[in-house]
């Protein structure tokens, strides 16, 4: 992929762990790429896996979902459901030929500002490697 390709990544973060972790990264002035745009949800369990499909269709080159570590969910079980559902979606996407590097999921706690940076860098790296994803973009078709 060309150097200048700046992938656009949509991220869904749970309010209690990863969103707080991302805030901590901010207060700690940890620098990371600007490609990741965050949507705050209360729990990773809220993330309807079809959001991922929708985001890719809406033009995202990659999607990132992050929640609390197993056992730490603020709502006790939400991240377990997220894990099961998104595993299935991941399988489906790979099977239909969506580059697996377009989808990442992570556990980042409220105190892991540094891990958040690493996760973002990984997601961006992956999306760059996978390249622009316009085959599936909604507005490019039929317009």
């Amino acid at each position, binding site marked *: 992929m060309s150097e200048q390709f700046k992938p656009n990544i949509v991220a869904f973060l749970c309010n209690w762990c990863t969103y707080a972790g991302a805030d901590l990264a901010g207060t700690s002035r940890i620098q990371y790429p600007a490609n990741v745009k965050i949507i705050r949800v209360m729990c990773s369990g809220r993330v309807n896996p079809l959001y991922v*499909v929708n985001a890719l269709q809406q033009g995202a080159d990659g999607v990132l979902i992050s929640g609390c570590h197993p056992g730490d969910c603020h709502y006790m079980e939400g991240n377990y459901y997220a894990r099961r559902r998104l595993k299935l979606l991941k399988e489906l996407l790979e099977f239909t030929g969506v580059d697996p590097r377009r989808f990442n999921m992570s556990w980042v706690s409220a105190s892991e500002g540094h891990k958040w940076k690493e996760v973002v860098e990984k997601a961006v790296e992956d999306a760059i490697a996978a390249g622009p994803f316009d085959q599936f973009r909604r507005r490019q*078709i039929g317009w």
Partner: protein
Amino acid sequence: MDLDKLRKTAAEVVSRDDVKYLIGWRRGTFGYRVAPHFIEDAAGVDELIFSPLCIANLANYLTLTEKLPVPRGQEADTRKVALLVKGCDSRAVAQLIVEKGIKREDVVVIGMPCPGMIDWKLLAERYPETDVAAEIGWKGEDFLLVRGEEEITIPRAEVLAEKCRLCRHPNPVLSDITIGEAVEPWAVAEDSGVAEIEAKETAERWDYWEEQFSKCIRCYSCRNACPLCYCEDCILDRLDPIWVNRAVNFSENTAFHLARAFHLAGRCVECGECERVCPVGIPLGKLNRKLARTVREEYGFEPGLDPEAEPFQASFKPDDPEEFIL
């Protein structure tokens, strides 16, 4: 296959006061077609058949049939529906019970151990359809096509439907009445259809499905034929919010099919109806079977075997696979 016993039993069942009607199969109007047959009284049983062409999954009608408004002062008709099921069909019934799509006590399940069904398209390639509905039965391992005088034996392997080659549960998993002896489950073939795609490079897989999904005319037959797609208001039809545009193009078609397949993950009983009814030949079964296999192999779960089971997507195990998580 003891047709008389079947018809006799059916007659008894439909005559019961607590049974609304019985759903079975009858010979079609031409070629290798078979039609779902709704029987309301004993008279109707004469047309009832069970042949290698009875591939349609009748469990679909348990939820497809509309609940009409009940006029004031009248009671809703809560009589049971009697249903003929093969192994795969019975799994759909079991899964519907898990999902409270139906109540166990609202159905009379008549189980038909299934020796395997014919994919009529394969048959038609060898022996084209005629304007008369064909007479077909089982002959040992194989199938027997009767055309007027001539009797043609068709080797099982040549025309056996793909879903049947992969079938793990030919005998009904639940039934109130079983007609005929349980069949010996046969060696399950490797799912070459899925394997072939998995063997491809990511980009090749995309191209493969792009060609498939581009054909889609969004007639929704795959969804409507699925016994487990029974939302009265499917989110893929909805305008607020819009998940998938009504427009028919590759992007929307892909979104539609991904959503459909995902919604069936951990629920699909692999009855193959979605693929069978598709007028443009999209191999939808592969999508479902891929996920079904993941669920079976990585979570040790098969839907539609136990009406008491926890719904897969509404449950979890603390040690579910998470190797993919950073």
